[in-house]
């Protein structure tokens, strides 16, 4: 083989390799992304039915219930606006506590419960997962807005009764 042909073969091989790998990567990335969706969005039906996704928020106080089989746990994740009931089979991470932030990954069942495959643990008791923090914050902002709108509406009402 001439050196020019060798070079062409090398370059061609490299391009083919990169192409295959890029296809592989994009395909894998596409099918393995878990979108994060807040409890309120889930309650409004914005969650995908068949795909894995993540929810985050606070574990509602007093909501952790152990089912009769001993290893299925049901709890509620809330962003203070909407509650989502979550089922998880297995042993929860140590830092999973009522009133603390948590992130769960799984699927939505037709009855509206969230079947978690994975519940994320944290290393630090004071740490709040960013997703959970965002859900709470968004819900809070909406709450404030609603309140402001209600007040504005009230103020706009004619004071006929007086």
């Amino acid at each position, binding site marked *: 083989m001439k050196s020019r042909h060798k070079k062409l073969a090398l370059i061609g091989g490299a391009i083919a390799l990169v192409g295959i790998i890029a296809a592989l990567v994009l395909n894998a990335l596409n099918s393995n992304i878990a979108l994060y969706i807040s409890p309120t969005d889930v309650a409004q039906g914005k969650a995908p039915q068949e795909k894995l996704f993540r929810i985050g928020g606070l574990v509602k106080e007093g909501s952790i219930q152990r089912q009769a089989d001993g290893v299925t746990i049901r709890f509620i994740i809330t962003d203070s606006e909407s509650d989502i009931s979550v089922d998880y089979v297995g042993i*929860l991470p140590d830092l999973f506590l009522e009133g603390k932030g948590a992130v769960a990954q799984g699927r939505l069942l037709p009855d509206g419960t969230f079947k978690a495959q994975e519940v994320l643990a944290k290393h630090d008791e004071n740490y709040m997962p960013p997703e959970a923090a965002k859900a709470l914050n968004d819900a809070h902002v909406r709450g404030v807005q609603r309140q402001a709108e209600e007040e504005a509406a009230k103020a706009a009402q004619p004071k006929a009764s007086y």
Partner: protein
Amino acid sequence: MIPELGHFALIFSAIVALLLGTLPLIGAHQGRPAWIALARPATDVFALLVTFSFLCLTWAFIANDFSVVYVAQHSNSLLPIEYRISAVWGGHEGSLLLWMLMMSWWALAVRLFSRQLPDVMLARVLGTLGLVCFGFLLFILFTSNPFERLLPGVAEGRDLNPLLQDPGLIIHPPLLYMGYVGFSVAYAFAIAALLSGKLDAAWARWSRPWTTAAWVFLTLGIAMGSWWAYYELGWGGWWFWDPVENASFMPWLIGTALMHSLAATEKRGSFKNWTVLLAISAFSLSLLGTFLVRSGVLTSVHAFATDPTRGIFILIFLVAVVGTSLALFAWRAPSVGLGGKFGLVSRESLLLTNNVLLVVSCATVLLGTLYPLLIDALGLGKISVGPPYFDAVFVPVMVPVLFLMGIAPFARWKEASLPEIQRAVRWALAAAAVVAIALPLIYGEWKTLTALGILLAGWILFTAGLNFFQRVSATRGERSLLASVFSQPASFAGMHLAHIGVAVFVVGVAMVSSYEEEKDVKMAPGETVEVSGYSFTFNGVQAVQGPNYQAAQGEFDLSMDGRFIRKLNPEKRNYFSSSMPMTEAAIDAGLWRDVYVSLGEPINPDQPEGEWAVRVYYKPFVDWIWGGCVIMSLGGLIAMFDRRYRNRRKTGGKQA
């Protein structure tokens, strides 16, 4: 008083680092011997000051000085002394100081073990290290000062995170940091070579043992972290593709590529530019890793409560380092030259393929790690990329790497003959195929991926053995076989040992991912659960008192076929100082399998003596994963001590 001394020492060390980072570099550029000569003493003083500062912080921990904010946040008077010492790097500020300490020691090591290095070169290397240290010291002093006082002091500290109260955590961060920071030496050598404009074989020979040393530490550090996650987190997994794990894995992949490309640069003068780029990348990825961990931009099990200004500082630092390095590279690279020519099939082309694949695999990991950040930054919502992505892209890229690992040692430099290699390795392939078919059948269930893994592992093992003994018999002459074995160059033996380590690792991964068994069950005292032929009988739970915690300790009888093996005592701990419960798994480790029990929670929280949720595992070959890493490191260690790195004056000194 002592914390203030530590603080002052740190400030002085920043000044010394600035001197070290400027005068010798300018001196080397303008040819001023006096300024060049400053590099050595400045390095000594710098290392001394940083070490002193570190000791001051350690003293504050040992003496329970809770008037220091950092100590109050990460220690407690009930904490046993060994954890009070390791608590020094249990938080952000102290771990950065540890990073600094490691870096000053690396600089000192370069200064001590590079007597043969020309003064100008040494001044440039140490000067580059000094500049990097200066940047980090500014970061510590302005955003993360561990010596900050809390006035008035508090009577009791908040305690070390219970997850970190473990022997694994005493050594995991120092090993990992030694690795991360070690790449700064390879980086400094590359920058020094670019500055001097001489990227030659001598430069490659100088940086090789340092790169290998950093790689050895990083390998051990990652393996240690993985092992710790396995036994301490109680989930039984050994790798989660967590962003922070990826952050340490990416420099490892590039570091591995760098070691191999340095070999080609040293032996044949090939890929010089490429090697320099890899050296810059390896260190940049170490910095990126620090940024990811410290800025809190990613959801990770490692995430700590964080401070955004720190993230921004590291990001600016990262941009400065990468930017100036690449600018320097762009300026100097065209004058470097191409090095020796090589054929389509040759040791060089195989190493190049290895490099491309390793870099590609690193890029896929980087993409998966940063993709959520990118999407978030573009306002497209928050997402996470799960382990299946990484498995799907990483494994296929690694398969050819493992395959080439068997062939490359047989290939000659410059031009190799394919038929010759084929003749040499065909029996190794046949033997590997036999093992790959037999082992899954012994385990009762055919798994194609496992068979492929075993095939590749066997292939690496047999080709390494074959190649080693071919060389032994070729160089034997009149000597005994054993004498010939021991007279092989250390780097040659080290290479094969490291490759065998990879094979052992692959066996562990292939076996455990297919044949592990896991059960989450509810158990009442007296009940038995069976996993893969092992019986676990639960004898109940009793309260146990630790130095700074109260624990519920379970007792299990492990037996097989009615034969008692041992008792297993997993614990659920509650630390006094924090509300965090902690699971301590009980593991019966073995060469062929681990069995693993961990306690979940009591079914009825008011009756801890009653039923519990329990997790039991059977993990075949899982210890081979970490064993393989240890063998890899051992191989690296042996290669580092090759004779030619010590006799460089004779062979390399002149060219420099």
